[in-house]
């Protein structure tokens, strides 16, 4: 069973603007290289202020690493999200020899256990053969931001203290062409957490989804990715699983699943695959006990998620108080 990383309410809030070493030192930090009681931006802010270069490892079940280059974030990886190597390798398992789900599954299984060695070798070999600097950099930033949510967000459970260790001089296998400040990456993590907190219809990265048995309308048009997501929403997979199967970002896949749920193609309630219950015009009719069982509000299916709201009104309550939603 995969860990449930997206649920913990509350995190250390990061002050806006430049971070002074004295300020960073007030965080839950200790001496570098020693074990930390909890993950959080404290050690990261301290390392950023020191302009450190190296890898900050967060161990434990939510393990990941933040690669710093002179105090800026070069790359973030997490065992939960597909990294650059996964995003690079995925097309080779579909384009050239048709859909080869088995071959891809053999790549994914070790990656999801955190065993990256073979995939990294294959991805590095691929990069030496082909010349894809633009889309490699796009995929690198996609993977970085996706892993940042898992590694730097409110991910580590309070009950499972994670150790944080810094190893100077360690770099990621794909050297960054662009780095990001710790503050801007944490702001992006906050934006993503706020969006996840506002997801409706019970969609969450770690919640099983299922396509509906019968569409409650005459016609619909889906993009290729939307179709692939619907195809994989088999009542056993979560958006997290689907993202891995597709070789796409977990956060983007979760939001795409939400979009499909709004369209009435996917539902979270396995018992509610009867199209009657998914009719957006009457969301409260037969779903009340299900809604209560999952303690989610009965919301209109047409509720539209707003990126703009998350970007312009970052709502601390949305991040720290999911229980209120």
């Amino acid at each position, binding site marked *: 069973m995969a860990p449930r990383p997206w649920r913990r309410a509350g995190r250390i809030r990061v002050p806006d603007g430049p971070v002074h070493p004295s300020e960073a030192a007030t965080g839950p930090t200790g001496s570098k290289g020693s074990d930390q009681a909890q993950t959080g931006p404290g050690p990261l802010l301290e390392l950023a202020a020191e302009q450190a*270069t190296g*890898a900050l*490892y*967060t*161990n434990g079940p939510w*393990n990941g*690493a933040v690669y710093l280059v002179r105090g800026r974030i070069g790359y973030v990886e997490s*065992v939960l999200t597909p990294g650059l190597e996964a995003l690079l390798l995925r097309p080779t398992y579909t384009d050239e020899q048709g859909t080869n789900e088995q071959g891809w599954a053999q790549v994914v299984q070790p990656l999801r256990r955190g065993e*990256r*060695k073979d995939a*990294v*070798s294959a991805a*590095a070999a691929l*990069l*030496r053969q*082909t*010349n*894809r*600097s*633009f*889309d*490699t*950099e*796009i*995929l690198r*930033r*996609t993977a970085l*931001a996706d892993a940042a949510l898992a590694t730097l967000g409110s991910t580590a459970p309070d009950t499972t203290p994670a150790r944080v*260790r810094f*190893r100077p001089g*360690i*770099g*990621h*296998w794909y*050297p960054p*062409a*662009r780095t990001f400040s710790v503050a*801007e990456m944490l702001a992006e993590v906050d934006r993503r957490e706020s969006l996840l907190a506002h997801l409706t219809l019970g969609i969450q990265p770690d919640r099983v989804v299922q396509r509906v048995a019968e569409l409650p*309308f005459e*016609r*619909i*048009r*889906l993009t290729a990715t*939307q179709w692939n997501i619907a195809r994989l929403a088999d009542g056993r997979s979560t958006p997290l699983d689907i993202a891995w199967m597709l*070789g*796409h*970002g977990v*956060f*983007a*896949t979760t939001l795409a699943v939400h*979009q499909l749920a*709004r*369209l009435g193609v996917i539902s979270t309630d396995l018992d509610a695959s009867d199209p009657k219950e998914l009719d957006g015009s009457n969301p409260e009719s037969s779903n009340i006990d299900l809604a209560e069982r999952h303690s989610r509000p009965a919301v209109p299916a047409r509720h*539209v998620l*707003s*990126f*703009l709201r*998350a*970007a*312009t009104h970052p709502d601390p309550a949305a991040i720290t108080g999911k229980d209120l939603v």
Partner: protein
Amino acid sequence: MHLIQADRQDDERESGSISVITDTAESIRAGTDAVHEALARLRSIDGLVVACLVEPDSAYVLDTVIGDAGPSTDPPAAPDSIGLTVAAGASDIAQVIGLMTSSLGDPDELEDVIITLGRRYHLITPLAQAGADGLLIVITLDRAHTNLALARQQLRALGPLLAPAIEPSRGS
């Protein structure tokens, strides 16, 4: 492969990371920022205020370029925050249009969205072939200093350059 040194330290094994000491990565070097270089071509558009490359499903701003007609004339606001706001709004619009066309079942593709304000245009152009699952380019133009038809042409010309595997060689 010599450049990928399987890490034997306990730390990295625990965290599942394969790492190299930065100096020993010989075959894959940190290249130039191909994404920023591609987007920077849009600086040639007259009246450009800001251009953003956005991942549409997550509204993640992958890169931003500030144009000559950029924020200096504005009430003081950080250029990045202008880009973030415009990108978020554009992603919302793209999502709503996606809901609409999906529900209509109409097999037609969104070419672009032009938003006409009193002093500015916002131009949203999807690049279906770029990235893992398509990208959006969002540009804001100063109406007094731009030619919308020309700007659309310049934007469309950029599309193929952003498609995978067309970038010029990575140098050494």
